[in-house]
């Protein structure tokens, strides 16, 4: 018995201490329902087709997380899905590998706005205002979102400076096409923070996208900002009755990047190549309505799917594209101010 115990303990030790020198391809995305859909459409079929094993992780965004990983030398990520300003900042700072488009179908294979030196677009989507139709009749605007006197209840917002300054100005009556011009002035930033000040006691912050439909469904908030797909997904799979306000939503593209110095660059390219197939990309929309970046991925949608899709011209025309250049220039400064503001 004692021998057996010793042997078992020894085996456990050896197994546990085995070095992870040749780690599997690590793919990092936004978690929750979206990553579940990606696993179904991309990760597992890719692994089955190529025999390449993969590990998943999820994150909540933030260029600082990527900077920390590269600078500390403790980077375990290979392929990461990043937001547009993270793509630009990280590319300039050398956090990502430069992409060789000849290995993933050439630049012409994709919509022009999805192509970048360091990353290839993976989804087109909107950050929308969402609410529970069972608890709120009508279609709220950002002005209503800020109007807690008229519509008492908590509000969900993403913990970060991007998105919220835009929403604040929209709620304060700034026309969508002037939002970034206003934010480029000191007075515009002040105005946005003053609006946020007013709402602050009523805000419940979410960090991971999965939290947005969660706090809405649990009734912790009356309305929340959210990526559009999570809301539609909750309606479909949890039979929620959530509404989406496309007007005043913020439209953007997320991209895949390969982290600098990744030991799995080969496998990463094979994944990107697999994922670039428009027929594969088209399978994502029925699971979660995010548009694909390969030409042809968003064609032939049924009217029901089209109505919920960010690529629907009717939805596109009322939404505002996130200004990456503005955030490239101002993210550091405004993040610091926001972080101090939110912690007080």
């Amino acid at each position, binding site marked *: 018995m004692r021998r057996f115990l010793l042997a078992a303990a020894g085996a456990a030790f050896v197994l546990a201490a085995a070095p992870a020198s040749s780690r599997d391809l690590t793919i990092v995305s936004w978690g929750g329902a979206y990553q579940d859909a990606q696993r179904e459409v991309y990760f597992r079929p890719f692994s089955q087709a190529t025999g390449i094993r993969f590990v998943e992780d999820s994150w909540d965004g933030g260029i600082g997380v990527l900077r*920390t990983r590269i600078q500390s030398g403790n980077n375990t990520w290979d392929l990461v899905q990043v937001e547009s300003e993270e793509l630009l900042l990280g590319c300039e700072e050398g956090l990502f590998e430069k992409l060789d488009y000849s290995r993933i179908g050439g630049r012409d294979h994709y919509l022009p706005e999805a192509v970048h030196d360091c990353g290839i677009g993976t989804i087109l989507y909107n950050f929308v205002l969402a609410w529970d139709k069972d608890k709120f009749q009508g279609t709220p605007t950002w002005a209503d979102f800020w109007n807690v006197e008229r519509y008492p209840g908590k509000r969900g917002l993403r913990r970060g400076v991007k998105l919220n300054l835009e929403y604040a100005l929209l709620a304060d009556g700034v026309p969508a096409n002037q939002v970034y011009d206003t934010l480029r002035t000191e007075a515009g930033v002040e105005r946005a923070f003053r609006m946020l000040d007013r709402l602050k006691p009523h805000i419940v912050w979410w960090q991971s996208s999965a939290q947005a439909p969660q706090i809405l469904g649990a009734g912790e908030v009356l309305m929340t900002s959210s990526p559009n797909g999570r809301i539609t997904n909750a309606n479909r799979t949890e039979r929620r009755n959530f509404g989406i306000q496309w007007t005043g939503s913020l439209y953007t593209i997320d991209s895949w990047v390969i982290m600098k110095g990744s030991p799995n660059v080969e496998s990463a390219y094979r994944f990107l190549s697999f994922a670039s197939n428009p027929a594969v990309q088209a399978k994502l929309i029925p699971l979660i309505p995010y548009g694909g970046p390969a030409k042809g991925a968003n064609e032939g949608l049924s009217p029901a799917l089209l109505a919920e899709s960010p690529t629907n011209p009717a939805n596109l025309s009322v939404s505002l594209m996130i200004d990456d250049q503005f955030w490239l220039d101002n993210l550091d400064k405004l993040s610091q101010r926001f972080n101090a503001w939110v912690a007080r």
Partner: protein
Amino acid sequence: MAHVAAIETGKAAAALARRARRAGYGQKVSAALLVLPLLLFVLVAFAAPIGAMLKRGVEDREVAPVLPRTIGALSGWSGTALPDEPVFAALVEDLREARAAGTLPSAASRLNHDQAGLRTTLIGSARRLAAPFEGPAREAVLRADPAWGQLETWGALARARGPWTDFFLLAALDLKRDAAGTIRAVAEEQAVFRTVFGRTFWIAAMVTAITLVLAYPLAALIALSRPAVASALLFAVLLPFWTSLLVRTAAWMVLLAREGVANHALVALGLFGAPQQLLFNRFAVVVAMVHILLPFMVLPLYAVMRQIPPIHLRAASSLGAHPVSAFRRVWLPQTLPGIGAGCLMVFIQALGFYITPALLGGGADQMLPYFIGFYANQTVNWGMAASLSLLLLAATLLIVGLYGQLVGFGAVRTS
């Protein structure tokens, strides 16, 4: 004869003592050898990393190697007017070289911690100044980014000259040196750490006070009731004590959710008209922390109370003392060591809480540890993480040391 015997005895005694000493010495060596592995393990794998991390709080070695000429040229700068042409020329050279070598990001990061936006300035200027230009460097640099026309930009460079700095420690107290070296308060919209320190100590104190009030009657009940009752009550203390902190935090999330058990029960009982928001606020953080730390207060109190002979109370009341005054005069003083030990353990653990506020609190309920994690993981501001750690560790050790001085660690044995 007696004399000889005495000498013989003396010799024997000396030999015996020698052997004993040798044995004692040998025992010391083997004792040291037994302790050594763990001691080395803790020193190398724990103490050294902690020391190295704390050192980052006073160290500043990121800018000078990347911009050596600029830092050198700035050495005699007064900080009251823009530097001269040679400094600008040195900057241009440094930026070109650093950009080619790819070393700019770490220096840009460091300067950005001093003044948000400087990362963009540095990296953007390097890009714009990469191509050769005509005329004085000063004009070209100012054209590349107007921020170089501000005193504070150069102040940030001068402050980051290294190798040692008080920048991060000052920042942890919402203070900063200006370009001329005078210490001033940071802009109001950036000030946050004094609030955070105050909040951390306030939450820890509140949690300590509440646990004391709750633990005292329970500990007394356990100490004074029949063995069967006592062991049942003790079980109620020990089970949560052994249960994972994360499990208990999860339990409170479920209990306090809008559609959770507490709200449902309160509405069903008619206490609330509609479910209330009980999560993501200070209330949730304090309740969960009290729950998690309560056993650390009950156990030392119980350990002390168990030692007090019940006869003392009875004696006091039979002598005519009012029960309240008997408690105050006889019982309470004897439990003081337990109160001290319990408060110490609860308070210093509360100071270090990370998981519970992160999951149950809102933005304004985060304590010092959250900010240490934030600066270490989500911005690359390791100096800030280190200086905040330094202050937290100093506070913890100070309280432990003070307690050791005033009360002594032998006052109570908890088992």
